[in-house]
């Protein structure tokens, strides 16, 4: 007996996964296991996302050197993806930017940029696994050559085998700081300063919750202890920082909790303060957002298994809420199972329960981590007027305050309209949250009322030439 196939007029459901980091990869593997062949679109040339980013050809090094403790995980994710590719279980589109999503009846239209050429793709269902970027906060000198984010300092090592300097100062408010200190130590560069803007006491208070993930906690403790043992103890509760230099970084001045100020010579600074979800595509797809107080950022609404507020759009990994690579792996699988479930494909109830339990445990850990590294409000409280807030447009805090005082913007989008904050190439990724903080502080509204910058297509710059028919190249 042969089973009847689908009627000729029934189109196969097209599932598109955006992002090939840990969430995207496990989502793809889960779909493939259930007979669905997803299209996986990723901006990078190779899968892995930022966390398991692979060096370009010519810059390869052994995984142990690149990923340290996480080499096995990185290798597993890369291997999983490679297997899916070689078995033709996925349709992989690397080096492809999805720059817009629009809803069209029950389907979605994706605008793509690949190889400098425009393309479109229709999708029935989308899993957004778009990852995160460093949360940057402005401080004097932050636009100087030689100042990078912590993520940048790590990518430089992992992907390029270069350090951001010989005398490097690392500044953070999150678990990336001790990790990066160790990664720089491992390549023979001893940071001249490792500064944490979170108070140590907050970490102690959060210890109970952090114990929900003993392995991760131990890893963090190990990094911190090892850094100290190698003469690079992390200074907690740093109150202010200032990059020194004229045309490039030559030093760092900072103030500690005891009121003392310090000045050191350095030729590279990496500073960022946690992560922010890359959620522009969720916004364009029409997903609703909510403000998460603990991480002090807007996140796309989703249910426990990753369904967004828009039917057919699922969100997983750091693009939904900052949780790290392990959470992303679980959440990618969970979102894929939810998608299959919604489409009537039977999935393992047991597996879904297992994922749910694991993610709940992770979520307790995450909450603890957020209280261990609270948002460093003190860094944005006293931003001097002359400081550039919007890197792209060169808009200063003084200009923003002037705009707030004279033009009375009621939310950050109005502030953008009046001041050009966030109107540059990065669409406010680096400054939108700071604009909201300034607005809340000076207009006396809450941070929720200050709102978030709405995404506008294209979410990243696209060349005019991509629309010129004669431009088609390989």
């Amino acid at each position, binding site marked *: 007996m042969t089973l009847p196939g689908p009627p000729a007029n029934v189109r196969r459901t097209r599932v598109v996964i955006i992002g090939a980091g840990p969430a995207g990869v496990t989502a793809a593997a889960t779909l493939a296991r259930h007979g669905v062949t997803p299209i996986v679109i990723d901006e990078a040339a190779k899968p892995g996302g930022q966390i398991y980013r692979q060096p370009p050809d010519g810059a390869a090094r052994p995984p142990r050197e690149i990923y340290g403790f996480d080499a096995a995980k990185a290798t597993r994710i890369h291997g999983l993806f490679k297997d899916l590719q070689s078995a033709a279980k996925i349709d992989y589109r690397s080096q492809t930017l999805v720059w817009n999503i629009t809803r069209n009846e029950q389907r979605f239209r994706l605008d793509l940029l690949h190889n400098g050429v425009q393309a479109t793709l229709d999708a029935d269902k989308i899993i957004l696994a778009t990852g995160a970027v460093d949360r940057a906060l402005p401080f004097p000198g932050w636009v*100087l050559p*030689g100042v990078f984010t912590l993520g940048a300092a790590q990518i430089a*090592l992992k992907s390029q085998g270069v350090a*951001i300097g010989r005398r490097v100062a690392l500044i953070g408010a999150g678990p990336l700081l001790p990790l990066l200190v160790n990664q720089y130590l491992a390549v023979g560069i001893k940071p001249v300063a490792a500064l944490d803007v979170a108070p140590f006491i907050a970490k102690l208070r959060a210890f109970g919750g952090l114990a929900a993930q003993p392995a991760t906690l131990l890893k963090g403790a190990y990094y911190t202890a090892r850094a100290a043992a190698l003469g690079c103890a992390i200074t907690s509760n740093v109150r202010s920082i200032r990059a020194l230099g004229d045309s490039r970084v030559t030093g760092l001045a900072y103030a500690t909790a005891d009121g003392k100020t310090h000045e050191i010579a350095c030729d590279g600074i990496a500073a960022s303060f946690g992560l922010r979800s890359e959620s522009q595509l969720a916004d364009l797809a029409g997903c609703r957002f909510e403000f998460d107080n603990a991480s002090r950022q807007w996140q796309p609404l989703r249910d426990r298994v990753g369904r967004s507020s828009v039917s057919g759009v699922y969100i997983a990994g750091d693009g939904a809420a900052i949780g790290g690579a392990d959470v992303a792996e679980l959440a990618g699988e969970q979102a894929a199972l939810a998608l299959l479930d919604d489409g009537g494909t039977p999935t393992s109830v047991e597996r879904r329960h297992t994922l749910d339990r694991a993610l709940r445990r992770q979520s307790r850990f995450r909450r603890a981590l957020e209280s261990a590294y609270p948002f460093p409000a003190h860094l944005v409280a006293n931003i001097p007027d002359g400081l550039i807030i919007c890197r792209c447009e060169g808009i200063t805090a003084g200009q923003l305050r002037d705009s707030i005082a004279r033009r009375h913007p009621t939310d950050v989008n109005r502030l953008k309209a009046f001041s050009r904050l966030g109107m540059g190439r990065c669409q406010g*990724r680096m400054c939108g949250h700071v604009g909201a903080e300034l607005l809340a502080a000076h207009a006396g509204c809450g941070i929720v009322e200050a709102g978030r910058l709405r995404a506008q297509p294209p979410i990243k*710059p696209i060349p005019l030439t991509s629309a010129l028919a004669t431009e088609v190249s390989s």
Partner: protein
Amino acid sequence: MTAQFKQNQQTHGAALLVRIKPRTSALVRFTIDGRPATAHIGDTILTALLLNQAHVRDFEFGGSQRAGFCLMGACQDCWVRLRSGPRVRACTALIEETMAICTEGRAV
């Protein structure tokens, strides 16, 4: 040290980035604002630039310079122009033989 190199050092500053171990991949010859420079296969344009000088581009609103920031294609602070016209994001595009990179901006 050639005279040209010395002059580059004075005019454009020493490298911002440091290789943690020598690269064995093939050499790539390219130019920065007309000056010859070298990098290796596998280097991004940003790496190639910042191993030769201390900036990626002139900032268009003021006399300062920028040298990238996020290195993951998010902050858009490292777009440079190729002499042939196209714009490229230095942190995500790889350096290629004979590339002619312009880091010089102009007063708007």
